[in-house]
């Protein structure tokens, strides 16, 4: 009894202290205007997908202190809750990105020493930096994080940039900019098959051999260190931060996440895993259906890429195609279809998988998931891959991946079933913070919808961290296709330059195109995609490795 009494007293004191502490803050106005009114939310009467395949209607979710406080049809709503009418809204667990580059910058190249020898370079010069921590190169407030959050992602395992062994990953939540937002540091060690240009190891051959040697020696070094710690008469072990970075993978407590591309690189990663015995997660798997049995057998974590190839085969056929060419086009089509159906095949084979956004564009991700669904993946399996499967692979499923009482408040709220083409994301909750997005009535982009009027001159503005830029877009009809050009400020000096637009596609109201700019000898490709509504275009400008920026355009009235 006295314990309970003491506890109550303690709690009482804490409340009092808290009150005393907080009251002066309350007395002031929040002159930044950023402090939120309440951290308690109630979304009422929504359709809630608590986990893949489990949905309930007319359900209310209470969020408090970053956690899901209650979920159900008849829950009492706290008086300080920010109420959101969820009627007609769909709520899903926040998407989890198994491997992401968002917000991560590339470390500066390490300078070569004066006695540099390409046959035995220092680890750091050769891209062997497993001791690096991605958080030292991460900016949680970067525009890329905002863009992925807008796409529904609330948690990501962020990967460091670099060579063969770039460093340790971390798991972060895409929460408020004032918070640290870290779930797990040193979550995994990243490995790639990237050779180091002009020095050892330069090719996959060398990378495979080097990886084996490092792993073996890390085991011997660790044994030596343990002996030294517990016995007299042992010579001092030589410190080696590269080898020490492997220690936590020996007992499987830290997985090694291997960035792979196709079935052959996937096999190579599995071969190393079988030889050396670490816990393996494969990231970026694509075209690996020939080895589904091996993947299943090896029990590794699988992250499929959310990047899909472009559909080029439909444009290949022409009147001059002879039989031989037609047969080849047919094979390209089959190969393309196979890639779209890959996720479905993994699911059918009973191999659970998550997704990685590495290499994918924010503007393509939901379209790509729809393509996977059209090619045999169930919505339930798609949701699992976006949420709970990835949570399990990352080892965070006890607090993320589903919507249930006590789990962290990460969720996506959409205007319709999230896998429908016209569905739009209205709110995203990340770390208990709400992020609102504009939704609009969209024209159907295929089917009966009218194609937007593209031809003409458009004034655009694009936002970037370096400031806004304005210019002119001109589109002209060219047979069934369009051609066009963009005018923009010369990045290499004064005045303006124009660049030809490429791969212009208009599908209903949805517009995409590309253009290239030569900036200091580097040819940079810009991808633009978005929607046209009347005379307004709203979309994004994406630059590989730099991120995605909002871009808007308004059509000039036609002068006749």
């Amino acid at each position, binding site marked *: 009894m006295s314990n309970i009494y003491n506890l109550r007293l303690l709690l009482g004191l804490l409340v009092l202290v808290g009150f005393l502490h907080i009251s002066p803050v309350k007395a002031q106005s929040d002159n930044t205007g950023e402090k939120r009114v309440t951290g308690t939310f109630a979304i009422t009467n929504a359709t809630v997908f608590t986990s893949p395949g489990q949905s309930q209607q007319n359900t209310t979710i209470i969020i408090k202190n970053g956690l899901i406080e209650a979920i159900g049809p008849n829950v009492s709503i706290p008086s300080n809750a920010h109420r959101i009418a969820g009627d007609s809204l769909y709520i899903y667990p926040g998407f989890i990105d198994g491997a992401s580059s968002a917000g991560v910058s590339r470390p500066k190249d390490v300078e070569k020493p004066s006695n540099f*020898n*390409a*046959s*035995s370079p220092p680890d750091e010069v050769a891209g062997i930096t497993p001791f690096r921590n991605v958080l030292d190169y991460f900016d949680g407030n970067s525009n890329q994080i905002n863009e992925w959050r807008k796409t529904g992602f609330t948690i990501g395992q962020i990967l460091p940039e670099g060579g063969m062994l770039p460093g340790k990953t971390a798991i972060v939540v895409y929460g408020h900019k004032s918070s640290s937002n870290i779930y797990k540091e040193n979550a995994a060690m990243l490995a790639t098959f990237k050779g180091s*240009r*002009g*020095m*050892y*190891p*330069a*090719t*996959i*051959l*060398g990378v*495979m*051999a*080097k990886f*084996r*040697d490092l792993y*073996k*020696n890390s085991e*011997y070094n660790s*044994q*030596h260190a343990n*002996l030294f710690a517990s*016995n007299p*008469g*042992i*010579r001092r072990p030589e410190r080696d931060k590269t080898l020490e970075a492997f220690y936590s993978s020996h007992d499987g407590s830290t997985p090694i996440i291997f960035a792979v591309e196709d*079935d*052959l690189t996937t*096999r*190579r990663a599995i*071969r190393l895993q*079988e*030889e050396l015995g670490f816990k393996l997660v494969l990231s970026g798997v694509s*075209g690996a259906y*020939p*080895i589904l049995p*091996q993947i299943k*057998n*090896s029990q590794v974590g699988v992250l499929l890429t959310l990047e899909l*190839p*472009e559909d*080029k*085969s439909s444009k*290949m056929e022409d009147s001059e195609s002879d039989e*031989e*060419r037609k*047969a*080849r*086009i047919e*094979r*390209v089509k*089959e*190969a*393309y279809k*196979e*890639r779209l159906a890959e996720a479905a095949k993994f699911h059918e084979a009973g191999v659970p998988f998550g997704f990685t956004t590495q290499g994918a564009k924010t503007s393509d991700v939901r379209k790509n998931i729809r393509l996977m669904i059209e090619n045999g993946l169930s919505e339930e399996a798609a949701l699992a891959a976006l949420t709970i499967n990835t949570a399990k692979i990352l080892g965070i499923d006890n607090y993320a991946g589903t919507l249930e009482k006590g789990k962290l408040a990460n969720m996506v709220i959409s205007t319709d079933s999230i896998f429908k083409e016209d569905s739009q994301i209205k709110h995203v909750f990340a770390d208990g913070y709400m992020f609102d997005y504009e939704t609009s009535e969209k024209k159907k982009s295929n089917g009966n919808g009218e194609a937007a009027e593209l031809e003409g001159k458009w004034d655009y503005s694009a936002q970037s961290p370096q400031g806004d830029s304005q210019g002119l877009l001109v589109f002209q009809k060219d047979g069934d296709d369009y051609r066009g050009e963009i005018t923009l400020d010369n990045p290499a000096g004064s005045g303006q330059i124009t660049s030809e637009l490429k791969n212009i596609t208009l599908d209903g109201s949805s517009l995409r195109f590309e253009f290239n700019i030569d900036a200091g000898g580097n040819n940079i490709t810009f991808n633009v995609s978005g929607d046209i509504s009347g005379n307004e275009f709203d979309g994004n400008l994406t630059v590989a490795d730099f991120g995605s920026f909002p871009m808007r355009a308004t059509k000039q009235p036609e002068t006749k």
Partner: protein
Amino acid sequence: MKKIIYAIAALMCWNAVEAQTDKGSVLIKNATVLTVTNGTLEDTDILVENGVIRSIGQGLSAGSNVTTVDAAGKYVMPGIIDAHSHIGLDVVNEATSPITSEVWMGDVVDPYDIGIYRALAGGTTISHAMHGSANAIGGQNVTLKHRYGTHDPENLFMKEAPRTIKFALGENPTRVHGRGNNIQPRTRMGVEAVIRNGFNEALQYKKRWEDYEQASKQRNSKAIAPKYDSRLQTLVDILDGDIIIHCHSYRADEIYMLIQVCKEFDITNIVFSHVNEGFKVAPELAEYTMGASVFADWWAYKFEVYYSTAFNAAILNENGVLTSINSDSGELIRHLYHEAAKTQRYGGLSDDEALALITINPAKQLGIGDMVGSIEEGKQADLVIFDNHPLSVYAIPQMTFVDGVKYFDISEDKDDQRLRVNPTELVEPIFLKEHDHKCMHDLDFLYTETENLFNLHNH
């Protein structure tokens, strides 16, 4: 000495996971059988059961479930073996160090390479997928059986073949490392020093591990393992006789040099490749080595390859050197039978001698002569059926079998034999210099720095 041999550890893993490779049964009737080791047998049948040649004779019969091929008027020879090739590989050179014995071509086998099918269409059933010649001691090679159609690189491995490794002498390693990177070796003397130092270091390494093993056996041992180094471990395995050296070489002096080094380190498992000046050191090659693997008539693509003769293979052969003819090329591998036939024009070799250059002799050089390379009962059923005698200029391969399974049939040859198709490309990039040797692939990084050094051919 604790043996840490990745290849063996890996082999155990493969066996656990992978299914056995396909083995076929077939009865070939009424053929002219060129056994290579036992003369020519007219009007003869070959019965293959479960991948193995069961019997050779007349009037053989098989169960109704076994396919019968009528080869009346046709010629059957053993599958052609290429002792020096780079087909089916994603990467050829890890050129960055004068010794890279730790790397293994088995890690980079590409089962989708259409070159494997083209080789089959030329009757070649086994190729020795080699590391390039950029380093004095290059990587470990892998012997491939051309089981085209598999997606699994390991199904191509001839797992019963012994380990082999690439060495290289002369201009390539001195150009890449000496002139390209300003490290040893810059000269032929440097190449010798690199190899000799490598072996000496390996002996010290072996000693360190033996001492450690010894110490670990003591009660309550607190022995600390020495640094593990798969590069030196591989050299130890060479010294222990577990690995056959295949050495890229041209000049007589450098060949003689390496023979001396090998004698000094008690190494007998060595084959010399290219060996254009081999005819000058034929008696030495015959006495101390596992022979020479040469081109029929290919030379003058760089300075060290000018002193050459088309009689090389015949001279070596007549002097008792175990001699083979190799392709080193995705193009030549399609007609090694033509290359072998050239020794009849230049040197007057007999049919059996000429055919041995591309069958049993390379098989012996790869350490697989007891399994393949001739048509004998009990050997693996790697067979090619030709419409004419394979040494005739009119010969065209009709069918090619590996382990009794038919992988090529000219009557079923499709326009498009690719196994994997790029989902976005109608015309996939192909290597337009396929006819060049591939020994010096993957060296682009050096070209940028010392471009003028690389304007020569790259064999």
